[in-house]
C-alpha cells in the first residue's frame, strides 16, 4: 500500500495514493475530467491539452492551469476542475479539435460509444463557429478486420502509442507535420499485429472501426451482451459479445483486472463469428432423416439402453471435449451413470497430448508451481519461452511478454521455429522438436553446478536467470512433449529460491484443457481407438469433438462409425457430415450457451450465454440432460446442481481438496498428483532423421475460430517448411510438393525457412475439416 495524501478537488477533500496520476485519481473518484490522449494502459502523453484544470500545490499558493494527466498528486494539493477559466480553456481546445471534424456521426460506427461525442458534450462545446473548408484525407485498406476513416482523427496519438509502443508493432505509424498528421501505414495493406483489433477500442473516434461489425452494423445500445469467456485458447480472456436479432455482431474485451485488462487478441475478437454459420444442419437427424428433437433424443436413449443391456457396461466409448464447458463434460459423465455403464471417455486426440496436458495441468492445479496472471507476467524481469510460439499458441501471453520486454526484461527463446517475438530475444536456441527437453536440462545442469563451464549458447540464459529478481518460464503443453514439461518444471523448481518467486505457466491446446484434465477417468486415445477398431465397443458418442480430427481424417471416421451399432454426435459445428452418425443432435454454440471453463492458471470462470432468436436453444449440456431425462433418470439431475462448481467437479470424478477463492477468482485444486504422472514412462519418440513440427498459427489453427470468415481470410496458406540446408541435402527445390510426414496422403508445397531447426518439417496445424463457408446473412 502506498501512502495516502490529502487533496482537495472542487472543494471536496479526498485521500488518495501519493504520487498517483491526478487524472486517473479524478476518474477513479468518478469525477469526469475530459481527456483523450490519456489511457490507463498507455499512460499520459500530454498531447491533446484537454484534461486541463486549475491546480495549486497548496491552499496558499496561486493556482495554475495544468494538464492533470501530466501531474502527480501531492499533499495539500488544491484542484479545481470546474473553475471557469479551466472550463473555458477546455471548451476552446475541443473547438479546435473539431475544426476539421467531418459531419459523419449518423454514418459513423463509433456513434453511441464515441469518446469525442462524450467529451464534446462534457466540455460544453455546443455550436460550430468555424466556416472554413474542412481538411480531408484518403483512407487506407488495412485488411479484413479494420476499417479506416482518417477524416475523423483528432491526433491524440493513442493508436500509434498502442500499436508501436505497447504492442511493439512496426507497420502503423504517424506521418507528416503540423496540421497534416496522418495515422496509417506506409502503403495500403493488412495490419501485421495480432492485436490490431484493439485499435478499435483505443481510438477515441471513428477512425479505426470494426470492419466485420460494420457489415451488419447496429448501435451498441441495441446489442444484447453477456459476460463470456473466450474459447479460442487456454488463457480464458473475458469478453463481452454483443448480438442482435439472430446473430452475434461483435466481440469486445471485458476488462478483467488480472487477465486481459484492456486488450484481447484478434482471434478472440473476430473468431466468434463462426457461431453465425454453424451448425448448418439445425434439425436433428436419425440416419440422415430430419426429425424432431424429442424423437431423436428418444431414439438415442432407446438405442443406448439396448446396447448396454446387450453388450454390457463397457460397450460405449465417448469423446468428451476440451473446448466445451465443465457442465457439458459433466453431463456426459452423468449420461454414463444414467445408463449404468462404465464411463469410457476420451478428451484428447493423441496419447502424447493426453500425457502432456495431464502432467502440466496436475502441476498447475496441485500448486507445485506458481502460475502467474497475465498482469504478473508483465512485471517479470526474465522471460524464457520454451517449446512453442507464444503468438500463435497463447496470444495474450505474447502481449504480456511484450510489456515485460518494454520494461527491460531479459527475454530468451528455445524453440524449433522462429516466432514473432524472437526479434526481441537476447538469444534464441533453435533446437529440433525432440531435443527441446535436453536443451532445458542443460540449462538446469549449468544452473545447479556453478563450477562447471557453461556451453556458450546457454551462457546468457543462465547468467540472466541467476541475476533475475522475478524469473518467468512459459512452456507449451500443446505439442505433446512430456519430457519437456517435466524438464521445465525441474528447471523452475531449481530456479525457485527463498527470496525470489519463480513463475511458470504452461499453455494448453484448448480453452478447457485444464478442466477436463482433472477428470481422473479419462481414457487414453489409443485405448479408445483400439476398443472401437476391434469392435469391443459397440457405440460411440461424440460431444463437441471433431471426429475427423480424432480418427485422423474423414474416411477413417466414416469407417469406424459404420462399424458401430450406434453413433451419436452432439455438436455446435457440423464439420463432418451429420448423416454419418446414427443420431445427430445440433447444439447451440459457445457464446450462446453458458458454462464454466478452467484456464491455464486453474481459474474457474463462468461464461454467460447471449439470448438471441436463433433456431437452436439448447447447448450440448442441455441436450445430454434431456437424454438422461428420457432414460427416466431425472433423479440424477436433481442431485447435480449445475450452478454449483463443486457438483460439476464431483460429476467429473474430480476430488477437490479445496477451491481457493483468491482475490479476483476461484481457483481449482485437483487431486491429480503430478508424481503419479511423472512415473508413467513418457513415450520416448523414435529417433528419426526428419521430424515433424506443428506450426500453431494465430489465425487458422484453432478449430472454432478457423471457421470464422475473417480469420480464414488471414490464415497463411498450407505449406511445408524446411531449412534450406536440409533442402539442399535432400535435393528438394522450393515449390516442390512433398508428402506430409504422418499424413502421407497429403502433399504440400515446400517453402524454405532459414529460421527453422535443422531436421524439421514444419507444417501448419489445420482443423481436420474447415468446410467451405456460407456468407453471413442478416436475418430480418
Amino acid at each position: 500500500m502506498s501512502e495516502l495524501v490529502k487533496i482537495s478537488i472542487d472543494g471536496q477533500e479526498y485521500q488518495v495514493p501519493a504520487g498517483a496520476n491526478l487524472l486517473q485519481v479524478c476518474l477513479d473518484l468518478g469525477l469526469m475530467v475530459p481527456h483523450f490522449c490519456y489511457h490507463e494502459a498507455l499512460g499520459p502523453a500530454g498531447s491533446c491539452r484537454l484534461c486541463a484544470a486549475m491546480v495549486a500545490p497548496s491552499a496558499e499558493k496561486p493556482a495554475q492551469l495544468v494538464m492533470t494527466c501530466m501531474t502527480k498528486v501531492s499533499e495539500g494539493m488544491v484542484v479545481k476542475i470546474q473553475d471557469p477559466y479551466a472550463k473555458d480553456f477546455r471548451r476552446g481546445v475541443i473547438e479546435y479539435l473539431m475544426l476539421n471534424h467531418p459531419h459523419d456521426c449518423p454514418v459513423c460506427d463509433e456513434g453511441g460509444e464515441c469518446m469525442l461525442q462524450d467529451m464534446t458534450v462534457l466540455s460544453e462545446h455546443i455550436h460550430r463557429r468555424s466556416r472554413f473548408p474542412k481538411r480531408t484525407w484518403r483512407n487506407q485498406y488495412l485488411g479484413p478486420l479494420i476499417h479506416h476513416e482518417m477524416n475523423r482523427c483528432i491526433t491524440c496519438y493513442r493508436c500509434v502509442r498502442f500499436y508501436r509502443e505497447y504492442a511493439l508493432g512496426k507497420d502503423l505509424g504517424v506521418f507528416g507535420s503540423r496540421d497534416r498528421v496522418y495515422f496509417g501505414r506506409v502503403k495500403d495493406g493488412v495490419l501485421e499485429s495480432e492485436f490490431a483489433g484493439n485499435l478499435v477500442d483505443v481510438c477515441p473516434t471513428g477512425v479505426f472501426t470494426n470492419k466485420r461489425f460494420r457489415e451488419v452494423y447496429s448501435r451498441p445500445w441495441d446489442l444484447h451482451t453477456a459476460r463470456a469467456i473466450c474459447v479460442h485458447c487456454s488463457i480464458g480472456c473475458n469478453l463481452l459479445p454483443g448480438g442482435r436479432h439472430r446473430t452475434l455482431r461483435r466481440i469486445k474485451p471485458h476488462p478483467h483486472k488480472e487477465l486481459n485488462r484492456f486488450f484481447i487478441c484478434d482471434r478472440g475478437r473476430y473468431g466468434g463469428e463462426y457461431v453465425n454459420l454453424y451448425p448448418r444442419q439445425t434439425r436433428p437427424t436419425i440416419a440422415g432423416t430430419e426429425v424432431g428433437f424429442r424423437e431423436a433424443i428418444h431414439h438415442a436413449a432407446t438405442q443406448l439402453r439396448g446396447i448396454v443391456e446387450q453388450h454390457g457396461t463397457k460397450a460405449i466409448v465417448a469423446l468428451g471435449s476440451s473446448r466445451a464447458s465443465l457442465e457439458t463434460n459433466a453431463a456426459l459423465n452423468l449420461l454414463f451413470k444414467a445408463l449404468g455403464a462404465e464411463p469410457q471417455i476420451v478428451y484428447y486426440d493423441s496419447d502424447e497430448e493426453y500425457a502432456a496436458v495431464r502432467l502440466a495441468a496436475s502441476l498447475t492445479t496441485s500448486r507445485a508451481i506458481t502460475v502467474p496472471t497475465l498482469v504478473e507476467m508483465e512485471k517479470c524481469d526474465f522471460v524464457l519461452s520454451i517449446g512453442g510460439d507464444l503468438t500463435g499458441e497463447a496470444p495474450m501471453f505474447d502481449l504480456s511478454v511484450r510489456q515485460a520486454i518494454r520494461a527491460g526484461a531479459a527475454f530468451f527463446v528455445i524453440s524449433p521455429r522462429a516466432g514473432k517475438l524472437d526479434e526481441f530475444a537476447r538469444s534464441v536456441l533453435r533446437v529440433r522438436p525432440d531435443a527441446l527437453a535436453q536443451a532445458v536440462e542443460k540449462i538446469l545442469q549449468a544452473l545447479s553446478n556453478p563450477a562447471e563451464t557453461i556451453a556458450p549458447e546457454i551462457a546468457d540464459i543462465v547468467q540472466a536467470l541467476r541475476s533475475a529478481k522475478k524469473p518467468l518460464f512459459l512452456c507449451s503443453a500443446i505439442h505433446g512433449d512430456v519430457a519437456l514439461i517435466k524438464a521445465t518444471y525441474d528447471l523452475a523448481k531449481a530456479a525457485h529460491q527463498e527470496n525470489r518467486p519463480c513463475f511458470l505457466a504452461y499453455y494448453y491446446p484448448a480453452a478447457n484443457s485444464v478442466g477436463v484434465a482433472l477428470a481422473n477417468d479419462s481414457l487414453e486415445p489409443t485405448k479408445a481407438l483400439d476398443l472401437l477398431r476391434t469392435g469391443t465397443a459397440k457405440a460411440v458418442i461424440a460431444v463437441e469433438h471433431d471426429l475427423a480430427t480424432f480418427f485422423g481424417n474423414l474416411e477413417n471416421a466414416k469407417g469406424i462409425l459404420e462399424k458401430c451399432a450406434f453413433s451419436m454426435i452432439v455438436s455446435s459445428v457440423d464439420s463432418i457430415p451429420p448423416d454419418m452418425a446414427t443420431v445427430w443432435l445440433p447444439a447451440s454454440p459457445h457464446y450462446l450457451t453458458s458454462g464454466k471453463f478452467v484456464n491455464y492458471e486453474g481459474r474457474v470462470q463462468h461464461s454467460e450465454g447471449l439470448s438471441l432468436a436463433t433456431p437452436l436453444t439448447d447447448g450440448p449440456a442441455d441436450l445430454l440432460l434431456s437424454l438422461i431425462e428420457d432414460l427416466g433418470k431425472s433423479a440424477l439431475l436433481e442431485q447435480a446442481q449445475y450452478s454449483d462448481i463443486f457438483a460439476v467437479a464431483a460429476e467429473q470424478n474430480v476430488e477437490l481438496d479445496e477451491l481457493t477463492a483468491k482475490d479476483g477468482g476461484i481457483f481449482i485444486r485437483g487431486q491429480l498428483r503430478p508424481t503419479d504422472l511423472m512415473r508413467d514412462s513418457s513415450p520416448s519418440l523414435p529417433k528419426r532423421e526428419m521430424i515433424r513440427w506443428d506450426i500453431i498459427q494465430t489465425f487458422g489453427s484453432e478449430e472454432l475460430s478457423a471457421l470464422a470468415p475473417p480469420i480464414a481470410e488471414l490464415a497463411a496458406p498450407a505449406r511445408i517448411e524446411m531449412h534450406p540446408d536440409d533442402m539442399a541435402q535432400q535435393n528438394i527445390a522450393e515449390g516442390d510438393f512433398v508428402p506430409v510426414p504422418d499424413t502421407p496422403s497429403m502433399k504440400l508445397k515446400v517453402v524454405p525457412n532459414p529460421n527453422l531447426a535443422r531436421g524439421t518439417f514444419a507444417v501448419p496445424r489445420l482443423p481436420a475439416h474447415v468446410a467451405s463457408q456460407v456468407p453471413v446473412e442478416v436475418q430480418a
Partner: protein
Amino acid sequence: MIRDLLTGLQITAKYIFRRPITFEYPEEKPIIPPRWRGRIVLTSDPDGEERCVACYLCQAVCPVQCIDLQATHRPDGRRVAAKFDINFARCIFCGFCEEACPTYAIQLTPDFEMSATERSSLLYHKEDLQISGTGKHPEYSFWKVSGVAIGGKDKGQGLNEEPPTNYRSNMP
C-alpha cells in the same frame, strides 16, 4: 311559462336557418395543416436517392419502440437500411423520430387515413414508407455534407471541403 316556451322556440328557429358546421366526411375532405403529425414516410434526397442512412436514431428515440431497422451498405458505399419497419398499430405519432433524424429522411405527413381491419396490415415495410419526393426539406442532402466518400463523390468533393491532404509534402 308561455314566455319560456317561446324563448326556447326562438333559439331553435335561429339555428334552423344557420349553416351546419358538420363535415360530410369522407365525401368532403378536411384541410389539414402541413405540419400535422400523421402517416410517416421516408423521403428522398434532392438527387432522388434514398435519404435515410440507417443511423438508428429514430429507432432509439421512439418511445413506443415501433421502429425496427437494420443497416447495410450499397455497393456505391452509401449506408442504407436493409430493413425498415414501422408498426403503426403501436405508433403514437409523437413526431420524435422526425425530430431526431439527422438527414430529414423520416417525416410525418398530414395523412391520417390509416385505419385497417387487420393489425398485420399496419406493419409498414421500407417500400411502403419510401416516397420519391424530398418532403419538407427540399435542399438538404446528407451525403454532400458528410466526409464519407461514396460513388460519385470522392474525398474532398463534399460541400466546404479541401481536396485530400498530401501529408508527404513539405510545402507550408
